Every structure is written in structure tokens, then in C-alpha cells.
């Protein structure tokens, strides 16, 4: 007998009444169909997580975030059913603007924020220098709390607002306006704003020593004044306009934020920078990349995961301002980021590089 269709197997989970007895009997004893049921189940679980909402009105942006998080955290199930590639590809595409390890990497260069919890990292300073990290390296980055206390002073509060005017009022920033949308991007955007966030990180030599010991390493002696040294990290506010396509994935995102700033209490940045770079747990290649940044706190790293190794970056200019282009998945996803007058702007989407640059250069 032929295998039941995919649609019929999906019904086993979401509408069993629509599965004829003959299909049930076949599926119960067919390894191919049972494997497919496993995949369907994982899909359903993922969709349920992604699209569960607390209110009556679905929040597509929030759903997308949950979906990308769920995909990032979910590697099981697909392999068992032999359909690894599509899931991995989607997962990696959605995960690209990842902010894992962001706090640590940012602190290392002296300019920082720990609170980039949303889809768009709120990054800072006068020039953006992307740091390409592979996923394993990100995982190995020590958590900030292993080196001291991180006290959140102002919590992350990213929320949807009604329109551009409301976004401008809430953020104090000019909401991005696009005269001509790229082909395939239609409709009005939804706006989200994030309030200013801030945190204070206090370095603890004892805590860092413990972390080093756990990793089987010895903590190098910290420079005088670093133990108990405090770093204040401030970011935001920010505003984002999101155009969503039919599948619910953002087709175009434009984000603007007051660039984050890091303040050091006492100890010179260069000293802290060199020391932090020498801490156990930091992969050598990442340390080398970070060393290449200027030590005056004006370069901000943009950590990105690149599990498939298909992220490319290049330098361009947007209306005379140096900018960085990120191109992913062979051009399926592109973004451009630049800093001007303490405001960082990012344009990204399921678009070509030329399309995001057109949008970036035509921003009102």
C-alpha cells in the first residue's frame, strides 16, 4: 500500500478524526510513516511555541522571535527523521543576528551593553566592526557573571507601539521612513521601541579565579585596581520598523538606537582590555580579532553566529558614512549597519545587498 500523504500524517496529530482507519493501520506499522510522524510532531511543537499568544491579537513580531529562539535551541528530532538540512538552514538564517555572548564581547572592547535581548543588538559607537564567531566559539565564551556581579539597573522593555508617531514619542528618535520599498515588501510596518537600558558590572577577581579553576586554568593576577572595578553599561533607547511577509517572517527590518556606551571607573581601558583578553575560556581566534580593535572604546564588535560558514562581510559607505554589509545564505539575507552622530542604524531583511543598500541610502 502507498504511504499516506504528508497532510494525512499531520492530521494524526492535529485532527485524528480526519485519518481513515486504513491509514492509521498502515502508519502504526510503517517505519517510514512513523519517522514522518516524529518530524510532524516536532514541527507542531515548534509552531505551538512560536505562535502561542497570551492575548487575542497575535503578535507576529513576538512570534517570530520565539520561533527563531525555538529553532536555535532545537536541534533534535530532525536528524532522526533524516531531514536535517532544511531545518538547519532555516535555523541558521533566523539566528544570524544573534546576540549570544554579546555582553562579554562588548565589555572586552570597553564599549558595551549587556542587555541586547531582542532581535536587533543595540550596539554602539562610531564604527561597527563585525566579529565573525562560529557557534562553538560562542558557546565557549564565559558568561559575564563568571567574572563578577552584573546588576541590571534599567530592565529591557521592548514593546510594540501603534505607529511611527508613537514610536518617535516613546524613543525620542526619528522613526525610519522608506519612500520606496523593495519589490516584494508591501504594506505598513509595525513599530517597536525599546527604552534605555543600563547595567553595572563589577569585576571580581575571586569569582574570575573560581571560573578559571573550574576550567582547569589559573587566573592571571589582575592588574591593580581591576578587582572591584565597576563598568557602567548604558544603551538605547531604540526604535524599529518591521515589515512582515505572508509567512510571518520579517521581510525588512530597520532599527535605530542611541549607541550604547561603556563607562569605566578608574582603571584605564587599555589595561582592562589586555587583561580581559588574557582570561581563560576565551578562544584564541576571538581574542586575536578583539585585539585588532581600537582600544579607545570607539569600535564596537557585532558578534554573529555563522554555523554554516556562509556569512560574508564587506565595507561600503552609506551617504559618505562607513558602513558594514553582512550577507548571509548566499544573498538570501542581507543587512547593513552604520553609526552616525551616536545613532546606530541597521537595515536588514530577506533581501539582496543591493536592495538593503537602496533602502539604507534612501532613508528619511
Amino acid at each position: 500500500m502507498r504511504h499516506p500523504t504528508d497532510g494525512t500524517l499531520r492530521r494524526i496529530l492535529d485532527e485524528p478524526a480526519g485519518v481513515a482507519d486504513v491509514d492509521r493501520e498502515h502508519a502504526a506499522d510503517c517505519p517510514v510513516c512513523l519517522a514522518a510522524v516524529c518530524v510532524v510532531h516536532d514541527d507542531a511543537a515548534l509552531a505551538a511555541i512560536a505562535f502561542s499568544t497570551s492575548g487575542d491579537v497575535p503578535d507576529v513580531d513576538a512570534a517570530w522571535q520565539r520561533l527563531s529562539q525555538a529553532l536555535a535551541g532545537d536541534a533534535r528530532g530532525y536528524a532522526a527523521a533524516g531531514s536535517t538540512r532544511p531545518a538547519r538552514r532555516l535555523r541558521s538564517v533566523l539566528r544570524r543576528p544573534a546576540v549570544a555572548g554579546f555582553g562579554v564581547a562588548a565589555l572586552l572592547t570597553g564599549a558595551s551593553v549587556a542587555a541586547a535581548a531582542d532581535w536587533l543588538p543595540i550596539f554602539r559607537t562610531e564604527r561597527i566592526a563585525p566579529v565573525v564567531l562560529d557557534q562553538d566559539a560562542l558557546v565557549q565564551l564565559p558568561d559575564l557573571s563568571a567574572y563578577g556581579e552584573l546588576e541590571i539597573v534599567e530592565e529591557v522593555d521592548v514593546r510594540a507601539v501603534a505607529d511611527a508617531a508613537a514610536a518617535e514619542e516613546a524613543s525620542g528618535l526619528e522613526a525610519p521612513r522608506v519612500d520606496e520599498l523593495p519589490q516584494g515588501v508591501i504594506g505598513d510596518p509595525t513599530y517597536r521601541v525599546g527604552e534605555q537600558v543600563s547595567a553595572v558590572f563589577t569585576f571580581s577577581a575571586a569569582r574570575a579565579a573560581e571560573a578559571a579553576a573550574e576550567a582547569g586554568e589559573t587566573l592571571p593576577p589582575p592588574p591593580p585596581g581591576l578587582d572591584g572595578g565597576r563598568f557602567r553599561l548604558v544603551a538605547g533607547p531604540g526604535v524599529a520598523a518591521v515589515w512582515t511577509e505572508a509567512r510571518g517572517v520579517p521581510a525588512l527590518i530597520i532599527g535605530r538606537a542611541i549607541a550604547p556606551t561603556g563607562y569605566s571607573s578608574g582603571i584605564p581601558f587599555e589595561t582592562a582590555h589586555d587583561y580581559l583578553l588574557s582570561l581563560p575560556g576565551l578562544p584564541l581566534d576571538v581574542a586575536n580579532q578583539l585585539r585588532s580593535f581600537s582600544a579607545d572604546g570607539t569600535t564596537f564588535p557585532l558578534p554573529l553566529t555563522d554555523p554554516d560558514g556562509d556569512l560574508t562581510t564587506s565595507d561600503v559607505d552609506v551617504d559618505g558614512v562607513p558602513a558594514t554589509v553582512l550577507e548571509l545564505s548566499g544573498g538570501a539575507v542581507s543587512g547593513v549597519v552604520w553609526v552616525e552622530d551616536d545613532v546606530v542604524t541597521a537595515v536588514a531583511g530577506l533581501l539582496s545587498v543591493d536592495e538593503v543598500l537602496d533602502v539604507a541610502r534612501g532613508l528619511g
Partner: protein
Amino acid sequence: MSAVVADQHSAQRLVRELPASDAVWCSGLRKRYGRQVAVADVSLTVARGEVLGLLGPNGAGKTSVIKMLLGLVRPDAGEAILLGRPARDPRSRANVGYLPELFRYQHWLTATEVLALHVRLAGADVPAAEQRECLAAVGLARRAGDRVGGFSKGMQQRLGLAVALVARPQLVILDEPTSALDPVGRADIRSLLLSLKNSGVAVLLNSHLIGEVERVCDRVVILDRGCVASSGTLQELLGQRELKLELGGVTGAASERLATAGRLSRTGNTYTVALPADQDATTVPNLVADLVRFGVHVHAVETTRISLEDRLLDILRSGSER
């Protein structure tokens, strides 16, 4: 969906432990005759042993739905499963009894012969004694040997019912089963339906006699212009109660208070509040006490249950307003 499918073993258990297939399941049924859309989008289920009433005005698509379920009409879209088999498979109808809206039996045969013929057509093995019992159950015991040509329309409808029931069906589809019957005949059919329900036979009952549906059905699906306008158990559809008040000197504040109790309508001094199904015992006394406090003269207060007829009209009217 809460089942956990970690591996194939769990998936196999999940498939094996699926609830038994329903008597009827259909999804997205659609049928157009020329330019006329008879059925636009109908999905419904009838559980095993359940009596489902199909209600709706003339032309709502009820009979077309039934004919699509039975393979008498090919749907333009959608699919159906009867007793676990796809409706396109003729074997799906082996255990289905059907009384059509328009019936005509061989007038030269006796009632017994008509029944025997249908037992043969169904490929069933039903002893003659059981066939006689079936005729008795529909009130034709004493006319078993008479030719159908001499039967009244009501008696022919009774015979049709016997035909639908004789091959021990697990699902019976009855299209207007009492249209030709007098009130006594209707009462007989109602008790027959209740006995079918008690013996676990699923029934899909198409009738525009609302009282009939209200008395015997577990659940009701209301069709309007080819779509499901509403569906639910009688409790869900009729759980609402209505509060009628004869009032004088109603101020704006009193009107607002009335509206907080439920949907408010007014004819002269009569105010009608549709109370929600989950209202508790204090809702009405509290409302009346508040009205008195507002200085309203309360002449009469009456709570009534909303009848299925009222509900049907309400649903159909609100549908035509859309």
C-alpha cells in the same frame, strides 16, 4: 496536542492509541451547481453514538451535504470519512442506513418484500424475524403483507425508515424523516431515534422541525447559505437565558446598569437582557436591587430560556446582517 513523540516507538503508540474514528467526519465540503453555490464550506463531525441535528433554512445546503457524504453527489472540494473509511470508497456506506428526503418504493411489492430486497442489496444477513421486528418498530407490523402501492405517504416514510434501519447500521442518515408524518407519527419517530441513541447508533438528522431536533439531538449544526453558521451542544446553544423586565422611569445610569448584565434590547417599557450562560444565582436579584436604587419602577421581572427556534432565528438574522 500534548502527546510526546520522542521516537518511533512513542509515535507508534500515539497512532495506535488514537481515539476511534468518528461516524462522520468531513472537512471543507464545497459544491456548486452552475453559478449557484449550494455548499460553500462545511466541516462537521458526528461521534459514534451521537445524534447530530442539521438545521437551517431552505436552500442552506443541508441535503447537498448529506448527498456528498453518501457519495451521491461528488464534492467540488473537501473530503469526508464515514465510519473510518473515505467516503469515496463504496465500502464506507456498507454500515450506513439512509432515508432520503424524497422516497419512492416499488409499489407492486409488499412492505416485507421491500425490506427483503434492501437486505439483499446491502449484502447483509438479517433473519426474517428480525426484519419483521424492524417493521414493527416503525409501526407497520400489521401492514407487512400489504402492497406499498396502497400505502399513504406517511406509511411509505415509515417503511423508508425501516429500510434505513434493517441492515443493523452503525450510522443512520435521515433527511427530513417526519416530513410526511402526522403528530403521532412524529412522536413515534422521536422515540425510535432515542432508542437508536441508546443502542449506540450514530444519527445525522436533517430536519427543519426545530422541536424535533431539540428533543432528540445531542448536538446541533446550523447551516446558512452553504456555511456552518453555528454549532454546539444544545447546552451551549441554549444555555442562555433571557430576562424580561417591565420598567418605568429608566434613567441613563439605569440603562447602563442593565447593559452590564447582558445584551440589552427594548420595546416600549419592556427591556430584554440576554443573560450570559455563566450567570450565577445573584445576577438577577442584584440587578433588580440596583434598578430600585436608581429610582426605577419595576413592574415585572421574568426569566425565560431562549428556545432553539429563537436562537436559530438570531443566528440566521445576524448572518444576514453581515
